[in-house]
């Protein structure tokens, strides 16, 4: 790991991904998947990662044929210790993409939706549940309102009711931590275009330690929040030093005496969670289906599709349409932003009931930034982007193919696919 890392704040994990030199064969397969060219090393020689460029997205990790990249942060045992501590409420924040992938680690077919079994296993392990889909809905309320404010400011010159600054169009989504870091390191000029809304994970941590104090009837420093994410970059995001808003809020109210605590205490990837279940002897596939238990586990269909590319946009459009026109969108499915094309775009003409005028909104959805982001960003920087709202996810396909997901035997790890055909395996 690069000790003199310059693109990290104090307290952040300086790069979640590293390459095990003894395993790397120098085959260059990972370089194809790296969005920033952070992987250095000649073909045939051991590769290493330039931590300053690395986004910690983990695409190299899930696509390496030899399993050479690994995560530098592993907190499975720390979480188990907290689960056994009776004084602590451990809150698991379950991301949408986890429920369609974790079954693969327990022998279920790819794409099995196991929300009930996942809740059951989590509660058996001792977690309380805050479904990240709940905060995805919350994100839509904040980010969607922000977009409407920006759009009405640009079109009708409407000012912020609270006198705050209103950012420019197009607005980029800010849910993907690898994308946020990509902007911060490579295109800082785009920072005003990023939505100021926190990602669902960070909202969840903050809500758990402020509003959640009432829900679980526990002081905030006795609530331990664990993000359960399909994503390795979320580990880096949770360690950003500015994410202590719950502590700041509680100490302003005089309810935080001790040391400062982060909004999200630690993050487990989907793979980490199945490892935790296996260590505790829980077989997810055979568990009972259960409900989430609290109001913070309530979610809508709009929140759950956040894990797919185009999902954030679709969810935002459903809500923005209803807020702007006063009617529900019909049909609710917005098929143009679905699918696996690199850049998807659509435009909707809607009638703003507040100003009684028709407005056309052009939206774009980008995923797999390693290949697809450059033309879209160049247009925005040149000031001739036709879009008003752009969703970006780093990983191809969205979070469901994130760097923390179960490694699919033969993904691009083609050695594993071919190995069974040979006698000496």
């Amino acid at each position, binding site marked *: 790991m690069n000790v003199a890392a310059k693109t990290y704040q104090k307290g952040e994990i300086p790069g979640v991904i590293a390459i095990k030199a003894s395993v790397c064969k120098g085959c260059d397969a990972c370089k194809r998947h790296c969005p920033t060219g952070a992987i250095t090393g000649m073909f045939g020689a051991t590769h290493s990662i330039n931590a300053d460029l690395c986004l910690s997205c983990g695409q190299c990790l899930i696509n390496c044929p030899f399993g050479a990249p690994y995560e530098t942060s592993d907190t499975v045992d720390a979480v188990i210790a907290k689960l056994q501590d009776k004084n602590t409420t451990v809150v698991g924040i379950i991301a949408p993409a986890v429920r369609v992938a974790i079954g693969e680690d327990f022998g279920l077919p790819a794409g099995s939706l196991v929300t009930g079994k996942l809740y059951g296993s989590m509660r058996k392990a001792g977690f309380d549940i805050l479904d990240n889909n709940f905060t995805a809905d919350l994100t839509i309320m904040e980010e969607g309102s922000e977009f409407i404010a920006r759009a009405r400011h640009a079109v009708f010159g409407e000012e912020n009711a609270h006198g705050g600054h209103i950012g420019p169009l197009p607005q980029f989504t800010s849910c993907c931590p690898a994308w946020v870091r990509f902007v911060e390191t490579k295109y800082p000029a785009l920072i005003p275009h990023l939505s100021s809304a926190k990602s669902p994970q960070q909202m969840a941590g903050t809500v758990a330690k402020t509003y959640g104090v009432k829900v679980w009837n526990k002081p905030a420093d006795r609530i331990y929040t664990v993000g359960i994410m399909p994503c390795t970059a979320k580990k880096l995001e949770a360690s950003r030093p500015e994410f202590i808003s719950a502590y700041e809020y509680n100490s302003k109210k005089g309810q935080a005496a001790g040391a400062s605590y982060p909004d999200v205490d630690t993050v487990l990837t989907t793979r980490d969670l199945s490892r935790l279940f296996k260590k505790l002897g829980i077989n997810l596939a055979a568990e009972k289906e259960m409900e989430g238990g609290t109001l913070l586990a309530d979610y809508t269909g709009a929140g759950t599709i956040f894990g797919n590319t185009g999902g954030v946009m679709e969810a935002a459009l459903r809500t923005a349409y209803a807020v702007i026109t006063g009617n529900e969108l019909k049909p609710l499915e917005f098929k143009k932003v679905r699918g696996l094309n690199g850049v998807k775009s659509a435009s909707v003409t809607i009638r703003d009931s507040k100003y009684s005028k028709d407005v056309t909104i052009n939206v774009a959805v980008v995923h797999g930034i390693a290949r697809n982001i450059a033309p879209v960003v160049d247009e925005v920087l040149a000031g001739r982007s036709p879009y008003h709202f752009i969703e970006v996810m780093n990983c191809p396909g969205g979070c469901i*193919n994130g760097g923390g997901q179960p490694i699919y035997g033969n993904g691009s790890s083609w050695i594993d696919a071919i190995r069974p055909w040979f006698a000496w395996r």
Partner: protein
Amino acid sequence: MEEKSYQYMENPLHVTRREFITIGGIVIAFLALPAVWFKSIATSNNQYIQARTKGLYQDDEKSAVRVSHANQSVMRYYKEFGGEPLGHLSHELLHTGYINRSKGLI
């Protein structure tokens, strides 16, 4: 000077035309195998992405409520605690800022 006699040998390998075509076909099939392998790997890569995508859209379709602004718990959060979207408390708790990290990279 003795003249070297020219000897013509018909089909020294004793391969008939049909056998030649068969052998040629087998060789080409073997050459094409890697292409089939890589194609199957590439499609299976997309298959698991598509299966997971489908799983989440199923979750959406079977939900009783499918729009964020109708989530009763979110409404309750704003009513009991958060105020309104983009309100004062939202700004304090649910929004953030970003920093320019490009200086370290020249």
